């Protein structure tokens, strides 16, 4: 048996991983999530703001990271919509435009009473701006130096939400969803740390260990990878139980079933690999 495993074609492992992810996904396996302190800090940051507060939603990711980050972006948007917050969307990634579109569609379709036809007065899409951290440095000091117009080419002075907004320091909360550079780290370095802007982030698993040291002094809270998104969705559902019947509000939770099975498989494979290694060493072939 061990000899067969020694020469096992790696494609069987790919197939096993495919099945470990696909079967729970097709069966719709979900598990209850217990919300961690870190996720509750993010939830409370949005929830404790008075209704109708101003929130910047910086969505710095592209379709390549959509599988991991879209549930977070949707959860942030949904939570802000439930609180009727005014939302300023922006992105530092060229491919971030369609990602913003998904969130604005969510506002218009799922919360029409607050957001349908309220572009400019309840939400605004500032779109993409090139310049990475240079843009952040500008928007925290003088928004209109970087953004003259919104994504549709309308002057910011003609939009009710941005007319009197001098800079991002005036908003009540900054939510950033990030897949890398430029993203969460830059928002901390040039936004939240020097100007004390209350900031919460959602980031990929790869970024999470880099961002952890900033909590809680420079960051209020963080949603780390799909697990963070699922916990945040659970926290929102706990507070707004009517969302329990809405499958779109459980995108992250839906992805945790495959995560569990795939992790069990991976742990098993690591253990098996070690058994083979020690067996080979005992045989003197390693």
């Amino acid at each position: 048996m061990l000899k067969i495993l020694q020469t096992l074609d790696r494609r069987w492992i790919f197939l096993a991983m495919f099945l470990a992810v696909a079967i729970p996904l097709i069966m719709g396996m979900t598990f209850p999530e217990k919300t961690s302190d870190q996720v509750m800090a993010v939830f409370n940051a949005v929830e404790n703001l008075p209704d109708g507060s101003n929130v910047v939603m910086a969505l710095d990711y592209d379709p390549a990271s959509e599988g991991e980050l879209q549930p977070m972006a949707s959860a942030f948007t949904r939570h802000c919509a439930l609180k009727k917050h005014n939302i300023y969307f922006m992105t530092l990634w060229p491919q971030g435009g369609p990602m913003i579109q998904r969130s604005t569609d969510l506002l218009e379709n799922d919360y029409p009473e607050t957001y349908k036809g309220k572009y400019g007065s309840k939400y605004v899409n500032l779109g993409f701006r090139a310049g990475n951290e240079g843009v952040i440095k500008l928007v925290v000091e003088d928004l209109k130096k970087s953004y003259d117009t919104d994504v549709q080419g309308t002057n910011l002075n003609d939009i009710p939400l941005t007319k009197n907004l001098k800079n991002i320091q005036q908003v009540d909360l900054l939510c950033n969803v990030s897949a890398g550079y430029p993203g969460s780290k830059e928002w901390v370095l040039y936004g939240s740390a020097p100007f004390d802007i209350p900031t919460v982030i959602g980031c990929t698993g790869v970024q999470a260990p880099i961002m952890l040291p900033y909590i809680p002094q420079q960051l209020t809270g963080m949603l780390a990878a799909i697990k963070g998104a699922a916990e945040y969705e659970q926290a929102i559902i706990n507070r707004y139980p009517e969302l329990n019947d809405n499958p779109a509000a459980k995108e992250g939770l839906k992805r945790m079933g495959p995560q569990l099975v795939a992790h069990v498989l991976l742990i098993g494979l690591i253990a098996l690999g070690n058994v083979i290694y020690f067996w080979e060493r005992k045989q003197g072939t390693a």
Partner: protein
Amino acid sequence: MKQSTLIWTLLMVFGGLSLIAIQLFRDKGEVYVREVPVEGKSSLPEAQEQTYRWSTYKQVSEKEKGKPGVSFSLSRTLGLWVAAFCTLAIFSFLYGDNPLYKFTEAVFVGVSAAYAMVVAFWTEIVTNLFAKLLPGYARMSFLPDISEDVQSDLLYLIPLVLSVLLLWRLAPKGTWIARWPLAFFIGATAGIRLISYLEADFIGQIQNTIMPFIVFSADGSLLWIQSLRNTIVIVGVTSCMVYFFFSIEHEGVVKYISRLGIWFLMVTFGASFAYTVMGRIALLSGRLDFLFNNWLGI
């Protein structure tokens, strides 16, 4: 033919036939849209007020097929099939390198680069440079909402000149000219980053590490989890720093502290790797969710 190749070929053929069968018999993989009429008025003050009407199309679920106003969208259906094909073509790399994978990879890279270039042109060159230097022309051509009070900002000639100098690198002679704008960008970026990193990553992180070993609640009881957490942070930071302190030989007590630092580093790398694995599985489940849900309708 090798036995493993035969098995894998059969698996691939079986998978492909299953996908076709699902599509043929379940009538899935079609996109339906609902027409949404839009009305707008001209925003130019000098123009005679005109009302413009057009339609946008909102994607709806297949359950709404046949309802009034809902129609089949050929372009979006094609888009769905192309996306599914590209996903499967990229996955085919797991079987082995093949022309289909290479073709899809090249398409992805090309489309991404082109998309970023077009977006940057319209949001930067047009909106941020052209409109700042020549607001009148910008108003007449691409950006009718620019206010008439806006004057030319000649400061923007500096980035324009620097950009042209940067492009000099492509010229057959005088490529050294491109070094001047590069030197400016590197210097400016280094200056901006230095201050921010000092503030957030150096001073800020020292502040974050100054914490009590033992934490008591307001009523005087010991918060042992918080105390343990703080202790781990302080011991971890100190031991890792000792490990990277090479001015003294790692012997005696220092050797044991630096070894503890290695353990902390190993745990950190393990956590990073685990997070990365979680991220990759999330991406895989995202694509499979697209294939099963949006395309196959399972």
